[in-house]
């Protein structure tokens, strides 16, 4: 198969024009069942040794090769080229949210900081058993759904909240947290990880997710981070955390504006009324300017594009609206 791979390249350390992003096209001939990664490796080996990307396992297990393919984050080694080619072209860009180191390589520091922030290791209160912990196979199989995460960052790349609020723990770290809150061996003798649940309910935690579902779509391993985030919310509520607690949702607004700035205006009201499913109620809360933007076919919160976010930001700055106080404060967060 003949195909052109269109790569968004950049070398932030270079002096010349390549300091800024630019597009380069590589025509290649590849096998019919070749992956996008096979094509990129072929380019790197036969054509252009200056092209940088991470890859290792070629079988969707090491998490190295997440990138945006035709605009959506995914693993290059899991994407068969002929399923994504459009008019003879496949467009490849570095993953989003994280800064570019070079070409398709992004800086994962913030990704790992977030993982470390959730205390990512088993914490069992009390004495360890002499032999193994006795737990059901079902509990372990259930955890496999999350431990199959390969830390590729595809979800982080496409998370609509992280794009505008870097303080959010984000889908990968919260899925990792669930791996412990749902582990019968973590926490007290009933397997309740109370401290974790409380910490995860703080600002930057599970309540900051807008339930946009992007992470679920991006994840190549079926981890479904958003569903895990919702499950942590449920666990927290079961353990007595509720919307009245600390007047969480009435106060959420001010609290969150304080921790991450004005942009949270865009999402806090939404979480208080139950996510995107409650669109009419949501619209009530939206600043007039924002509604206008929406009519102008601006995507709602799901800004895929930093430029759009910047536009929204600028508008807000100009309008300086008073934060509208959410009218419904005690809605179920599960919408």
């Amino acid at each position, binding site marked *: 198969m003949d195909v052109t791979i269109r790569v968004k390249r950049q070398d932030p350390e270079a002096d010349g024009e390549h300091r800024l992003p630019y597009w380069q096209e590589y025509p290649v001939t590849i096998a019919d069942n070749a992956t996008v990664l096979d094509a990129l490796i072929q380019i*790197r080996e036969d054509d252009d040794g200056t092209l940088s990307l991470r890859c*290792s396992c070629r079988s969707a297990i090491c998490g190295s090769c997440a990138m945006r393919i035709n605009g959506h984050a995914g693993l290059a080694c899991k994407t068969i080229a002929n399923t994504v080619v459009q008019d003879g072209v496949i467009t490849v860009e570095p993953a989003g949210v994280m800064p570019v180191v*070079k070409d398709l390589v992004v800086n994962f520091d913030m990704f790992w900081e977030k993982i470390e922030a959730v205390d990512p290791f088993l914490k069992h209160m009390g004495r360890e058993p002499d032999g193994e912990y006795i*737990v059901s*196979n079902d509990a372990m199989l259930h955890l496999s759904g999350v*431990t199959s995460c390969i830390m590729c960052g595809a979800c982080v790349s496409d998370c609509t909240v992280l794009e505008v609020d870097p303080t959010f723990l984000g889908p990968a770290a919260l899925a990792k947290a669930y791996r412990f809150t749902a582990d019968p061996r973590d926490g007290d003798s009933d397997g309740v990880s109370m401290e974790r649940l409380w910490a995860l309910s703080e600002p930057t935690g599970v309540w900051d997710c807008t339930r946009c579902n992007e992470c679920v779509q991006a994840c190549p391993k079926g981890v479904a981070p958003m569903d895990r985030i919702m499950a942590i919310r449920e666990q927290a509520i079961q353990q007595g955390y509720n919307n009245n607690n600390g007047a969480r949702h009435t106060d959420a607004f001010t609290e969150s504006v304080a921790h991450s700035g004005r942009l949270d205006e865009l999402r806090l009201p939404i979480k208080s009324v139950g996510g995107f499913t409650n669109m009419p109620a949501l619209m009530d809360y939206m600043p007039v300017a924002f509604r206008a933007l929406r009519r102008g076919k601006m995507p709602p919160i799901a800004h895929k594009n930093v430029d759009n976010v910047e536009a929204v930001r600028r508008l807000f700055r100009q309008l300086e609206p008073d934060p509208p106080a959410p009218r419904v404060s005690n809605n179920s967060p599960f919408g």
Partner: protein
Amino acid sequence: MAEVLQHDVLVVGAGLAGMRAAIAARAGGANTAIISKVHPVRSHSNAAQGGINAALLDRGDDWEDHAYDTIKGSDFLGDQDAIEVMCRQAGASLIDMEHMGVTFNRDDDGRLGTRAFGGQRRARTFFVGDFTGQALLHVMFEQLIKSGVQRYEEWFVTALIMEDGQAAGVIALEIRTGELHLIRAKSVILATGGCGRLFEPSTNALIVTGDGMGLVYNAGGQLMDMEMVQYHPTTLAGSGVLISEAARGEGAYLRDKDGNRFMERYAPNMMELASRDVVSRAEQTEINGGNGVDGCVYLDCTHLGEALIMEKLSQIREIGIDLAGTDMIREPIPIRPGMHYIMGGIKTDIEGRTNLNGVYAAGECANVSVHGGNRLGANSLLDTIVFGERSGNHASEFTRDMSFPEFDINGTLNRERRRIQEMLDRPENGDRWSAIRREMGESMNRNVAVFRNEEGIEETIDDLHQLRRRYENVPVHNKGKNFNTDLIFALELGYMLDCADTIAVGALDRKESRGAQFRTDYPERNDEEWLHHIVLTKGDGGPITSELPVTITKWTPEERKY
């Protein structure tokens, strides 16, 4: 000049062996750091699908049975003292891993469950679905975070520094910035994994390039039994990606083009679960005899049922769909033997010590030797954990009352800077690393594979000489500093050529058939002349071989039948 980095114990490699070693060294009180050319969770230990062996005594198993199966699997080339250490320790190490948080599959009583694996008379392979390596690796990384070990992630080691016969540190390239750093150390533990990519194709990840073996070899250390290269019976045509032995462990059949289960003729008792060298040879014999299709035979899982496949083999089913377009629930998958693992490696004792003072090795890059001529499935993860921990313990003890070796730090670093600058400054013409690497891989796979003979091996040795000459002028097209993978691949190729030389020379030297080494010109095992290890050190004209006796404790070598 930037401040000098220094640590009592410096672990090179953050796969299972390296992280286990670092955690142990830190727990022993040593100032410990770990350095890895990829982020730890990207390490190749991820790829292990099937499981990890242990004889749990409270389940009626016996470590001596495990030891015997391992020794028989090794075709009696494994050192029995080392195998005893590993098999005795296995149960405790397994429970440690469970306590750390590994989500092992359970039985109906909520205890750890097992599956059957090749070459063993009872099911003692513990597993997490079909992604055991990934599950272990990520948990080990969690423990590494908890341990407070200093991490140098995406740093590539280019040289091992020896001073007066004592380990003194390493030089490493910080990949993100292109800076070269010297890290001083009182002891260095190499846990750099195997060298699979010097064969083409291979089941191994692209980063598995024999760096640690090359580092030790060039520093005057010993490699051992390098000719023992495992071809796994079930790899996908084309990409060479692995379909785990777990499939056969769960009951899958091997069939020829007419649907016959040909293993009946090669291993009537163990059938598909005979040891890997035996099964791979059987397949290759069938393929060579015209009973395959397009160089493959079939792995048939269709009778296992969708439910079992989805619960226990779902990842490999996905690999089959993604890479071969075949759903194993519905049709047999075409497979063939493919390069998978190296039993040989850096010679160590049971504490992980090499012949170089202060240098340790553990995991696939090491040869203790527990695998001898053929490794049993699921014994390698165990090897990484047991001997990773032991080398970490020993190194932390060893460095306790020791001071840092003194040497000319700037001079050493500058010499290495010049060497690398010289590579970058080469003219851009000439073959790139990729062409040389491919030719090396194809030559190895042609002549130093399942079946070998003198003529073929000599042809490959000639090829390697030519390739090395071309390598000396290999250009680096990327002149930039940040994330210059072009430079790294060129450096890796140097390690690979060193390993390839030792493998080919070892294979030529051993004039018998044992384990993974099958010489069509010497088809019998010959205990009288060849029941010994082959040690390789670097000489002016290539590897120099010498002999070392095999340690035999209580299991006398006997004929091997499955």
